[in-house]
């Protein structure tokens, strides 16, 4: 270990690390644009210059390796003047359109200007005209006038996805970022370049002009679109999601998320959200109060039990359930309905790659296995057989949308059954033959945990809602169970997790509140 001094603070520094790395670790802010922890060092913005004793010139903190006994100053007059100079240079050709720029509020140029800039513009010449509102495809819009040519986006495609989709053309102050002519961004990780763009040069089509960023609340969560469990932040306002951003977790997704996850949140605030319980009457499906819905389900299930026995009811878990939902649902099947016919419908399989994207398009299949669930088969074949044999007369389904879309000839299958109750968040697919739909909350509206494909338990947090009168799945089950005379004593997801951590071997000793930003790795299946 080296000893170095930054602004009078004595610090331990790993040999081979840079001044900037050491400073960041010590909580010392050295402004920078082009440096990004996941990308190669480019040293082009020149914003991170610092003064180092015994070195005549200012040094870029991002590229200067520490040496033992090094003495660094990050805020001398010389440094501050250099930073002001860099900002002034960047702003020469930069439009002053912060009032209409989506980046305003999270723009490094704007932020640093407020600290180091604030001068009368000395630029009397004509600004360079460059291309604006360039559609790069993949939801990204480029404004080359706002670009400060830090090359983060170029390096992202060269080094992270290795798809080489952006280049810098021409030279000098005519340099411009672009795709190859006629080509659009194709990488499913393209959205990340909007995140790493330190200014408003790259903006998201999806988010453009939707909301000023300072109005947004941020809630840490986990992406539900595949089993990777990428760490995300939900940016929302007044019960509506405006965008999804990646959250750093070096063990899971590093700094990135794929576009499926980034833009796959629309169902949360979709028009077709089911806001109230719906039961089938003589005139079709009608919305009812929860009390009415719960009694209806209870009466119908009871009737099936008394007619065909409790084993004639099958319970279907969904890989979209949290561990807490899945745990309570299991108890419901075993202790409330008293059936051995319970299983889960596996996640839909889709495209995958060797980076983040996993084939299993749901967040918690591993968690279901951990909670003791067995599969009904990829297309619920085992279930189909039992239905066809008339062994099963009624279904209790969670994640109903998945069931309707994944099970082949689902209407025919359902028509055989006497009674069907589904938990659903969105009204999708052939729902007419369902007897009761209980509105479930989405991941954005509840607390709980998911266990990703490698066994990492990670927390999701309620951002808002739930929407309408929907409820987390476990709360719905709790209400139904109450009718059966079974009282689940859980008030919040944490209570259920506490029980899980006592009962499920591989989760032994995990404290819900202590599950941090990295999650907790478990090993058992």
């Amino acid at each position, binding site marked *: 270990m080296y000893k170095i001094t930054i602004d009078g603070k004595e610090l331990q520094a790993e040999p081979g690390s840079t001044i900037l790395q050491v400073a960041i670790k010590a909580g010392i802010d050295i402004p920078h644009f082009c440096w990004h922890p996941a990308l190669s060092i480019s040293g082009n913005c020149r914003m991170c210059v610092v003064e180092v004793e015994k070195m005549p010139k200012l040094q870029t903190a991002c590229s200067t390796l520490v040496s033992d006994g090094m003495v660094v100053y990050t805020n001398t007059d010389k440094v501050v003047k250099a930073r002001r100079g860099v900002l002034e240079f960047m702003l020469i050709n930069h439009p002053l359109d912060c009032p209409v720029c989506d980046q305003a509020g999270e723009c490094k140029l704007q932020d640093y200007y407020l600290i180091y800039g604030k001068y009368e513009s000395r630029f009397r010449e004509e600004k360079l005209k460059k291309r604006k509102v360039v559609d790069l495809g993949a939801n990204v819009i480029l404004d080359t006038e706002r670009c400060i040519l830090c090359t983060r986006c170029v390096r992202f495609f060269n080094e992270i996805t290795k798809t080489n989709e952006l280049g810098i*053309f021409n*030279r000098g102050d005519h340099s411009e970022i672009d795709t190859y*002519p006629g080509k659009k961004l194709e990488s499913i990780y393209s959205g990340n370049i909007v995140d790493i763009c330190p200014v408003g040069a790259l903006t998201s089509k999806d988010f453009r002009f939707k909301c000023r960023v300072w109005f947004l609340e941020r809630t840490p969560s986990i992406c539900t679109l595949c089993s990777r469990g990428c760490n995300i932040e939900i940016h929302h306002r007044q019960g509506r999601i405006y965008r999804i951003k990646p959250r750093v977790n070096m063990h899971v997704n590093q700094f990135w998320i794929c576009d499926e996850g980034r833009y796959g949140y629309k169902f949360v605030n979709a028009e077709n959200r089911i806001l109230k319980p719906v039961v089938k009457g003589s005139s079709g499906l009608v919305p009812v109060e929860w009390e009415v819905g719960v009694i209806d389900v209870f009466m119908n299930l009871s009737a099936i039990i008394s007619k065909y026995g409790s084993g004639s009811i099958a319970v279907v878990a969904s890989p979209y359930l949290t561990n807490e939902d899945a745990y309570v649902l299991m108890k419901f099947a075993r202790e409330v309905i008293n059936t051995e016919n319970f299983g889960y419908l596996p996640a839909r399989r889709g495209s995958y790659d060797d980076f983040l994207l996993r084939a299993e398009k749901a967040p918690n299949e591993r968690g279901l296995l951990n909670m003791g669930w067995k599969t009904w088969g990829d297309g619920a074949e085992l279930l189909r057989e039992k239905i066809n044999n008339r062994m099963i007369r009624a279904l209790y389904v969670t994640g109903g949308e998945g069931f309707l879309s994944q099970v082949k000839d689902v209407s025919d299958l359902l028509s055989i059954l006497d009674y069907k109750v589904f938990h659903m968040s969105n009204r999708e697919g052939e729902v007419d033959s369902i007897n009761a739909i209980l509105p479930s909350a989405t991941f954005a509206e509840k607390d709980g945990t998911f266990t990703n494909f490698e066994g990492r338990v990670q927390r999701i947090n309620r951002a808002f809602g739930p929407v309408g009168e929907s409820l987390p799945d476990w709360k719905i089950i709790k209400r139904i169970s109450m009718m059966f005379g079974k009282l689940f004593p859980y008030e919040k997801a944490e209570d259920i997790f506490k029980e899980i951590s006592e009962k499920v071997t591989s989760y032994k000793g995990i404290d819900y509140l202590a599950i941090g930003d990295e999650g907790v790795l478990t090993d058992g299946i």
Partner: protein
Amino acid sequence: MKISFRNDVLKEAQRIISLYPRKESSLLPLLHIAQREFGYISDEVEAYIAELLQIPPIHVREVVSFYTMFRKRPLGKYHIQVCRNISCSLLGSDGLIDYLKKQLGIDEGETTSDGLFTLSTVECLGSCGTAPVIQINDVYYENMSREKLERLLEELRRGG
């Protein structure tokens, strides 16, 4: 349209590639050959060279746009490049540029309507001892004066 080198040119290209420990090092020389063969570096040429060297086409395009000698458009039969840097400027290159503009009826970067001349100004050609210097296609013309230029233009108009 798919473009490719003739066999003999391809051989020349392969010989050049073999001079380097790494293929991609031959990008600049190969682009020179392509420009000689096809007149300019079209998008098709970029794609072809990229394929030849197994590098991303966007990389070739970045390079083409960086170096001033590579052209994205066809030029006139005679590309007149007038040095405008210090030694030439001290010895009258501005006057030569004005003269050429007037004589040819075109501005910098333009080509005469008969396709004969393209006029460019360039930075130092490294021949300052014989300033002012102009370059026509690959050849330097040194110690230029208006009179010499007049005769040269006439010769070129008559077909070189």
